[in-house]
């Protein structure tokens, strides 16, 4: 990826401004900027996952564990969990039940462009970082698990057997120390199935691949438009529905559903307050006229 010095400085300036305005009580680690910080791709980073190239070696799964210092499993995990943030799933894609066909697919946090989890977190423990990943700060989190409920992909996982539980999901923590220029899973892939870059660039690359080999790929990039787009883009040779991806999701960002209701709160509050004050003023008019006592109404029990 080419990035001029001028562009780099622009990005730094914009990030500083964003950070300054969006200052929070406890900024999380991924927010630190400085000399050691990697050069961020313009327009938010993303990962392109070409499932046709995946050989199912699970290198990305192990690399993720190693980079994040997570406990290794005796048997490689097949689902996400509090100690497995990235997983290779072997899904049966056959339409014929008698002849199973198994295909590997890498699955982790989709880092949505408009994440439901970020939208529902009451305290802002989850934020869409400006380099494109969804960051989590356990020091802010209250453990309400609304994010687990809201995530359409079932990504956030919880330490159910801990008195001090956290939300566990990919936060590109492997890049937080600034020693990597791309996530550990991308680094580890021996088959070029994973590619790290800016989202717009990767979308162009993906469209190129589909255009060059229309017979090989399904003409759809999963994550381009789903729930307003995600920062994990999938290419596939079989229909995504058959591949076990959720295809029932709308193209509109999910947070809008809540915001439609939430944005009406000031109006409702104002209307109710004015209405009730008016009613109270009207119903107490005779007592005001009488004005024998300072206040005729009290919380005293009736006679």
């Amino acid at each position, binding site marked *: 990826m080419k990035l001029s010095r001028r562009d780099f400085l622009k990005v730094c300036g914009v990030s500083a401004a964003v950070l300054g305005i969006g200052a929070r009580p406890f900024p999380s680690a991924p927010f630190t900027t400085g000399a050691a910080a990697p050069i961020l791709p313009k327009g938010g980073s993303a990962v392109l996952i070409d499932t046709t190239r995946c050989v199912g070696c699970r290198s990305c799964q192990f690399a993720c564990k190693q980079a994040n210092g997570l406990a290794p499993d005796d048997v490689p995990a097949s689902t996400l*969990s509090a100690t497995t943030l990235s997983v290779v799933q072997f899904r049966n894609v056959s339409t014929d039940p008698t002849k199973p066909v198994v295909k590997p697919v890498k699955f982790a946090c989709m880092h949505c462009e408009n994440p439901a989890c970020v939208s529902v977190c009451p305290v802002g423990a989850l934020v869409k970082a400006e380099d494109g990943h969804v960051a989590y700060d356990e020091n802010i989190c209250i453990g309400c698990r609304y994010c687990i409920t809201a995530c359409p992909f079932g990504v956030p996982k919880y330490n159910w057997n801990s008195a001090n539980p956290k939300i566990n999901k990919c936060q590109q923590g492997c890049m937080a120390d600034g020693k990597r220029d791309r996530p550990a899973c991308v680094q580890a892939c021996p088959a070029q199935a994973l590619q790290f870059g800016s989202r717009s660039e990767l979308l162009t690359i993906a469209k190129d691949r589909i255009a060059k080999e229309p017979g090989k790929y399904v003409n759809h990039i999963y994550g381009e438009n789903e729930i307003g787009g995600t920062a994990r883009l999938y290419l596939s040779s079989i229909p995504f529905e058959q591949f076990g991806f959720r295809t029932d999701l*709308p193209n509109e960002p999910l947070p809008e559903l*809540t915001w439609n209701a939430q944005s009406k709160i000031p109006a409702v509050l104002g209307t109710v307050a004015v209405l009730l004050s008016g009613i109270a003023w009207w119903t107490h008019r005779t007592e005001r006229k009488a004005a024998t006592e300072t206040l005729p109404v009290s919380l005293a029990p*009736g006679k």
Partner: protein
Amino acid sequence: MSPTLEFLTVAFMFVVRIAVPLALVFGVLYLLKRWLEPREENASRFKLSLVLPPALVSLVSFVAMVVVGVVAYTMVTNQFVNLLMLFRDIVVVLYLFALRIVLPVVLLLAVGTWLERRLNPDAVRESKPLGERYPVLQRIHWPRVSGRGALAIFLLALLWAAGIGMTIARFFFGLGYVTNMSDDFPWGIWIGFDVISGVALAAGGFIIAGTVYVFNVERFHPIVRPAVLTALLGYLLVIIGLLFDLGRWYNVWHPIFMWNLHSPLLEVAWCVMLYTTVLALEFSPIIFEKFNLQWPLKVIRAITIPLVILGMCLSTLHQSSLGSLFLIFPEKINPLWYSPLLPVFFFISAVAVGLGMVMVESNLSARAFHRELEDHLMRDLSLAAAITLFIYFALKVYDLIVRGATAYLTVPGFHSMMYWIEMGLGVIAPLLILATRRGRASPRAVFASAVLIVGGVVLNRLNTALLGWWAYAGTGPIYVPSLGELTITFTLVSAGVVAFGLAAKFLPVFPRGEHAHA
């Protein structure tokens, strides 16, 4: 293991295994001796009330010692479970003792008594009170409790002991230890019932307070205080329930300072905080009256109307925002319950269940405290409930038709069944009863329909938050609340009932003149 720790363990085990049992045995022998010894007539009799305070103090200090010991041990060894294992044999022996000896003896005695009464009815006529048969029992001044009261106290003690155990387990080991929640079912009955239903059930406070102070309908004055008390207790229980459910409960204050305005949960948190404060202020005149504090009473009376208006605004916001919680996952909930109008439905049904709860609570407290039921008020309330239910019902039907979700009504299965139960028993049945003048005139019919409304709205909340999710209509694993979760829920509910009873007994909650005498 370090020598110090070894010494401490041995000392601790000596105390627990040898000193305490010896002290117990000698103590019991000494007490028996004192009771059974013949004494002069005027000798003071043994009074339970004299023994109780020192016994309580020793119990509390014992518990404190155990807690300190456990914390110290945990900090030194970082192994809490091992500590429990040290006492496994004692628990097993106690369990076996109860199962093999106490239970058979009690069963034998019960069967024997029953047989004796059946075979020899004359003996029953001759039977003397227990105190005369065993004079030693007369030496104890038992608190005066009826048979049913004793049973209730026993069951409550059992429930609360289990509740304390579950509380310790939940806060020491985490949610997974006590609950059946999982990553697939991150919200269970604590959210579905304790919090979401709890807030709805406590809606009676703002409705009655608003009727009296904003709409100035004076005749509802006698039921303001019980309604506000029910609401205050309800919200306190919601907050306690929330503390159980929040994984990082020690961060519960974060919503005060850290805001995400997109989250309906932030709004609910703020409104619950503020409204609980408002309710406490609305309730405070009762305390001030009790202790005859004049100037705070004046201050509160001066701000009553703005306070009630504030409470109504807050209630409108968070009762509806609880419905907004579910707007963000349309694909997870059956269209019978998911609707963009969820906030509106939650608000209207909260008004209905608030009225229902006031009626239920008035009926129950009239029965418990031998007061007269305010029949004319119940009639007015039931008319209001009927109107609210009609609006709710009409809007529900309209919404189903507009969204084209009526087809789901006839899909056989768990969801359509739950929907028909909820709407049929919880909305249509009470609506039909209360729509007629005869139904509203009969206190029993009004009480029955109020119970139906309460049950229907609780079912609606459970359906929306839990049972209406697609997982429950499929064949995969589902969440069923664990015994631990149910124990905590029932403990909280019973604590609320007991607190209401105590407040009604010791505070001027009900109108003067016909004060509680139960």
